[in-house]
């Protein structure tokens, strides 16, 4: 070893060593320019977690992650000028290739009954204008639009902008913002949704790091120079982490591993932590060279004395960072691995390049007396040593109290922790909460055959049940859309009766992007979009649990529509859910009446049916044109509700010589064929109207629309009962997803990552230190201050209500890695001391370096808290505080447990006070 060290820093070897290090790490660093960057924030999602897999699959299927929401307030959303501006904005967005599709009030397609008879496919808001009252009526009748694309008070618009599959969210967000700002004043514009939020987080963090990292590094350099009082030595010590960082990034480029958001903080960590190794080497070297006078010999002695301790300190930090490998997020593993590699490079350079250059340049400094910080720390240590038993009790109490408070730290991924109040996402969130009730969505994915009416009824029931959950603003689902189409085709807004009719209704919806968010092309999977209002984390938990409970009920099988008593119960239960979704809670008596009403068949009023048939005959849709025969029309309508043998009755009504060139028989046949569907539809409507009236007698608070809806439920379930038994639930599966579920998964992951990385880091550190000091006891002693620091920091988090999240889950490893160094140096110095009071001697020798390093690291990280990025603020602020706590606890803890001196080898403190 001595020979190797002599070769390394000998008079002839030192320049060669310096040159080799520069060439090797310079060349490796040159590759750093080729490093790729991974902007994907979704890469931070924990791998293999069921909820995350579901989130990815559901969003891939329905495109939820690719939607940006653009909103702005207006004085009057129905004003033609505002609609024209909205249309221009929608079209401008639609034209951009970076945008897949823009959905706004101005391009919503609508299938509706035509006042002139028949149906019309139209734009809900026609470009050529429409009466304001008519427009308001149209919109108000569509819950999927009113409150979603335009606020209920018509004071704000929302545009849903879909990104093309696989597009870059940052490019997409940038383009949408640019286009939107070209039409709407940027002060009025509010942007929300995953692409905007992820872009904001990425860009602010990157911008903060880009802006603050040079300042943080400069601050570190300045503090090191001030503390070290040696410009060239300080700069030399800082070259090691600089080359180390370049080498690590170069290695990443060579390995084809892209950089990520967290890795952007690597330079600050390496400069803060990695500079300590060279400083420790140089500090001891200056002391030795002041006595021996020969730089080469002084450096050789220095490396033999402090080398093992510097290596141990470096390895503990590396171990702390390698504990990131136990995490389930690839970017954090990459961060841990390559920051550890950068530190390893810094460590190697601190023990090769730094000594070699110092020898080559023959660096030396003027000896100085004990510093103020040495004296102050020694006073504290002396005070502790004067009453060790009491201090132990105090320290144990602090640890226990801190641990108890730390137990209160819950892993909660609060979306608000990602952006500050007043930031664009926060403004967007507030805007959509104020005007649209909220902008947070849960997606309930159901898999079954959604061409079957019973399954669409099940969706409607689930929707009603979820609507009654506190915190739920609205539920969008495909059964509602199909019912809208059915209204146009059959005259009533309800789920069609047969699978064939449902397939036809789907045919009308083909290609509509807004519908593709709700049902897959094969109609086997649907997503119910549950909009949540602004909720606290606790409220969100409760709402999420309740919704999951409702979904579990839906899949448990007891919602299956069956014959007999079960069907009756199901009918009443379904009706109650629909009524409760309107905010009305029927009492026991009313429920009994509902049950009685559900049990009996409704009697259609023939006059209602006749009026319906007459309306049909007045339209252009009949096969026979009776426009010139009003009397015959009325007779035919009356005959339609007068019993069996319709065609015979019609034959008796049609003139003997037929009509419009067609013979009597043909005309009668055509009329009978035409009237088949209208009679059936008219009868249904009449039954519904009859039931609806009775319902309003039972529940006077029911609106007409709600009463009709319940009446349709009774009718539909009665019809379904008549068919063969259905078994939708046997093939039904359900998953609840969305950002709240994802945040829960991230919280679980943060907790698990914290525990696993903590266990790995502490285990590795204990192993390294026990090995270094040749004693498990000393290993524990050197580890104890870090454990106490963790208890204090996490206890503080518990007391202040700071949650464990993605950023703060990295804390433990960083604290262990950086903080344990102090104990390593103090214990090593104490063991090496030959003074009468070894502890005080070791304290005086190590205090300047320990406090300098703690201040340097704390200052570097503290500067990062001045940025806009919230995740960076949390982790940087807590790390800065933790390092100062770690320095203090190191001296106090080690002093509280004085040991009988056992010298195994002549070890010298590596961080003696400055000469």
């Amino acid at each position, binding site marked *: 070893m001595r020979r190797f060290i002599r070769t390394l820093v000998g008079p002839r070897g030192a320049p060669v060593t310096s040159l080799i290090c520069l060439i090797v790490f310079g060349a490796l660093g040159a590759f750093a320019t080729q490093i790729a960057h991974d902007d994907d924030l979704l890469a931070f999602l924990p791998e293999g977690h069921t909820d995350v897999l579901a989130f990815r699959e559901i969003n891939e299927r329905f495109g939820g992650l690719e939607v940006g929401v653009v909103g702005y307030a207006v004085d009057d959303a129905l004003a033609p000028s505002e609609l024209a501006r909205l249309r221009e904005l929608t079209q401008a967005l639609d034209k951009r290739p970076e945008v897949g599709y823009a959905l706004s009030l101005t391009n919503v*397609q609508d299938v509706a009954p035509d006042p002139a008879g*028949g*149906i019309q496919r139209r734009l809900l808001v*026609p470009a050529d204008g429409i009466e304001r009252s008519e427009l308001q009526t149209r919109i108000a009748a569509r819950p999927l639009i009113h409150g979603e694309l335009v606020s209920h008070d018509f004071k704000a618009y929302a545009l849903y902008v879909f990104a093309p599959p696989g597009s870059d969210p940052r490019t997409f967000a940038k383009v949408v913002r640019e286009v939107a700002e070209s039409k709407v004043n940027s002060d009025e514009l509010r942007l929300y949704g995953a692409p905007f939020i992820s872009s904001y987080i990425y860009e602010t963090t990157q911008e903060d790091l880009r802006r603050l990292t040079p300042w943080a590094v400069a601050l570190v350099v300045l503090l090191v120079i001030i503390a070290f009082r040696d410009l060239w030595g300080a700069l030399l010590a800082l070259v090691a982490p600089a080359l180390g960082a370049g080498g690590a990034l170069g290695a990443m480029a060579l390995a084809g591993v892209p950089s990520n958001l967290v890795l952007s903080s690597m330079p600050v960590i390496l400069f803060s932590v990695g500079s300590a190794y060279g400083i420790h080497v140089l500090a001891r070297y200056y002391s030795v060279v002041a006595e021996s006078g020969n730089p080469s010999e002084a450096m050789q002695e220095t490396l033999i004395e402090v080398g093992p301790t510097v290596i141990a300190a470096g390895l503990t930090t590396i171990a702390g960072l390698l504990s990131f490998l136990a995490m389930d997020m690839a970017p954090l593993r990459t961060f841990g691995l390559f920051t550890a590699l950068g530190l390893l490079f810094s460590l190697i350079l601190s023990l090769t390049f730094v000594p070699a250059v110092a020898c080559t340049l023959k660096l030396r400094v003027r000896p100085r007396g004990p510093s103020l910080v040495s004296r102050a720390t020694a006073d504290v240590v002396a005070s502790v040593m004067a009453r060790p038993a009491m201090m132990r009790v105090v320290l144990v109490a602090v640890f226990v109290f801190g641990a108890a408070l730390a137990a209160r730290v819950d892993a909660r991924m609060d979306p608000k922790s990602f952006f500050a109040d007043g930031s664009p996402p926060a403004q967007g969130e507030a805007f959509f909460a104020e005007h649209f009730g909220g902008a947070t969505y849960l997606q309930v994915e159901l898999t079954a055959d959604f061409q079957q009416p019973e399954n669409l009824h099940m969706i409607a029931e689930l929707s009603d049940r979820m609507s009654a959950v506190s915190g739920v603003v609205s539920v969008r689902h495909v059964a509602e859309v199909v019912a809208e189409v059915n209204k146009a085709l059959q005259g009533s807004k309800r789920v069609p009766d047969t699978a064939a009719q449902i397939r036809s209704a789907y*045919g009308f919806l083909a290609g509509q992007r807004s519908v593709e968010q709700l049902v897959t092309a094969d109609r086997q999977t649907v997503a119910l979009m549950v909009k949540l209002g602004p909720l606290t984390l606790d409220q969100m938990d409760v709402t999420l649990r309740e919704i999951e409970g409702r979904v579990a009920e839906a899949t448990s099988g007891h919602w299956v529509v069956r014959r007999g008593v079960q069907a009756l119960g199901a009918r009443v239960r379904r009706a109650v859910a629909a009524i409760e979704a309107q905010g009305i809670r029927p009492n026991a008596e009313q429920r009994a009446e509902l049950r009685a009403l559900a049990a009996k068949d409704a009697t259609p009023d023939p006059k209602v049916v006749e009026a319906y048939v007459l309306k049909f005959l007045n339209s252009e849709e*009949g096969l026979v044109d009776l426009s010139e025969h009003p009397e015959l029309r009325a007779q035919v309508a009356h005959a339609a509700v007068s019993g069996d043998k319709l065609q015979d009755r019609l034959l008796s009504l049609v003139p003997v010589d037929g009509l419009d060139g067609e013979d009597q028989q043909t005309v009668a046949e055509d009329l009978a064929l035409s009237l088949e569907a209208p009679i059936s539809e008219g009868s249904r409507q009449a039954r519904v109207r009859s039931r609806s009236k009775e319902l309003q007698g039972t529940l006077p608070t029911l609106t007409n629309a709600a009463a009709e809806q319940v009446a349709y439920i009774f009718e539909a379930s009665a019809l379904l009962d008549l068919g063969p038994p259905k078994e939708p639930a046997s093939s039904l599966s359900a998953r609840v997803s969305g950002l709240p579920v994802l945040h829960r998964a991230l919280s679980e992951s943060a907790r698990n990552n914290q525990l696993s990385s903590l266990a790995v880091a502490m285990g590795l550190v204990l192993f390294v230190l026990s090995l270094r000091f040749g004693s498990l006891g000393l290993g524990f002693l050197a580890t104890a201050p870090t454990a106490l620091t963790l208890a204090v920091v996490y206890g503080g988090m518990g007391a202040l209500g700071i949650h464990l999240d993605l950023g703060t889950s990295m804390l433990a490893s960083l604290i262990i890695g950086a903080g344990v160094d102090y104990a390593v140096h103090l214990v090593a110095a104490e063991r090496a001391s030959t003074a009468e009071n070894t502890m005080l001697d070791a304290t005086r020798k190590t205090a300047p370096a320990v406090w300098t390093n703690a201040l340097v690291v704390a200052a570097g990280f503290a500067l990062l808290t001045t940025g806009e990025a919230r995740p960076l603020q949390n982790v940087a602020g807590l790390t800065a505080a933790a390092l100062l706590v770690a320095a203090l606890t190191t001296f106090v803890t080690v002093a509280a447990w004085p040991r009988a001196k056992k010298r195994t080898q002549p070890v010298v403190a590596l961080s003696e006070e400055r000469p």
Partner: protein
Amino acid sequence: MMSLAALALCIAAPADGQAHLQKVDEAINRWTDQFFSYEMIDHQPGKSPRTLGLEVHMLGEKRFTQFTAPAEMKGTRILILSPTRMYVYLPAYKKVRRVASHVSAQGLMGTAYASDDLAVETYSDLYTAKLKSQDDTNLVLDLVAKKGATVPYPQIEMTVEKKRYLPKKFVYKDTDGSLMKTERRGAYKCVGDICAPTKMQMEDHRRPGHKTQLLNKKWKPNSGLKPSLFTKRTLQKGL
């Protein structure tokens, strides 16, 4: 002298273009009635191709269309008597419904083709054409919508086969010249002097990767289709 020649060419060009366009109209409208059986294959990024089958009978401006695939559309029939009179028969509802469509520029059944794309039969009455370029086999015409004309595309760059005046490619553009769609018509099949493309494709540039192929599986021009086919009775009862 050269400048004068260029000026003369410029002045002459629009008239030439319009004459060429009229010849195109004449070449593609030589039929009295037609029957097509189409397979329509829609491709969208990230999705499996979707196939629609349809049979179209045409007599003048009247059209009778019957869907043969997919299952959810099978049996659905559409009767167009004029641009403003359209009826649909949905077998599941057993009812003829009149449909007033105000969204004809939107994709037909979610495909890259819009209803308007299939409805335009003549161009010279809607567009002013200018000869952009030509070589031995093709002409390229720049079409700009006439003032007041209701058209789905304000500008079209039309490539025409010089010999038969059959259009091969349409580049549809917005008012500002931005690309909207590109349509290709090829593999023309002719019966006498009546020709029809057997392969067509529409690509929607506003939906990157979205394109629809229209394959003409069967074609019969001038087979004597009867007016009684184009009635609500046939629509309800079927062919």
